[in-house]
């Protein structure tokens, strides 16, 4: 195992139970934020390439309404 990871694991293991729990929760929170930021960046990049990034909120809502009706009609008509 990577020496840095081994050192971190040892440090975490030396913490009390409550601290370990708080640390793991904080790590999960930061990991989610980083993951969302990366996903968002890639999504925005794709929208930019497609000329779709600067749509207004109203435009986006209108498009989402249209998609909603199309999917519902496909799934539930007849």
């Amino acid at each position, binding site marked *: 195992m990577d020496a840095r990871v081994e050192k971190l694991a040892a440090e975490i293991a030396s913490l009390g139970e409550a601290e370990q729990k708080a640390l793991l929760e904080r790590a999960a929170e930061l990991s989610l934020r980083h993951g969302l930021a990366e996903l*968002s960046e*890639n999504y925005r990049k794709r929208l930019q390439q497609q000329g779709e990034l600067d749509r207004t909120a109203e435009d986006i809502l209108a498009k*989402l309404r249209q998609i909603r009706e199309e999917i519902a009609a496909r*799934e539930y008509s007849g």
Partner: protein
Amino acid sequence: MSILDEWIVFDTNIWIFGLRRVPNIPACAQLLECLDRLRVVLPRQILQELQANLSENEITTLFRLLSRFPGRLRISWDKTSPQIISKYQREGCKLGDAVIAAHLEELDIKILVSENRDFLKEIRNLPFRRLSASQALAELKQSTT
């Protein structure tokens, strides 16, 4: 029950505005960052709407992130009840909105977070509350202090 204890549904616009980081609605991105503290249900109609908006890679990445919190995410791939859909249509809902309302009623969800202010506005006695992203954030803040 507080928003922390309830299973809630994010409308598709919350996911999309949040991931797009729409500048005038920052609450959507902020709410997504709180997913590790909420209990979120993804009904079939919203899953399909996300699939229509995001690429395969983007969907995979989103679900990989969400799967880190298995106790806080429920995916419901079941179709919803045509009888409940018809009930909402009779009250004036478009088919798509009726499907969303029927999913929530059938899954016994008490909170829908949406940035669509007109969504289901005309329906009386909804079995769930509608909150904007900023209202949801305010409730979350209140519940954690």
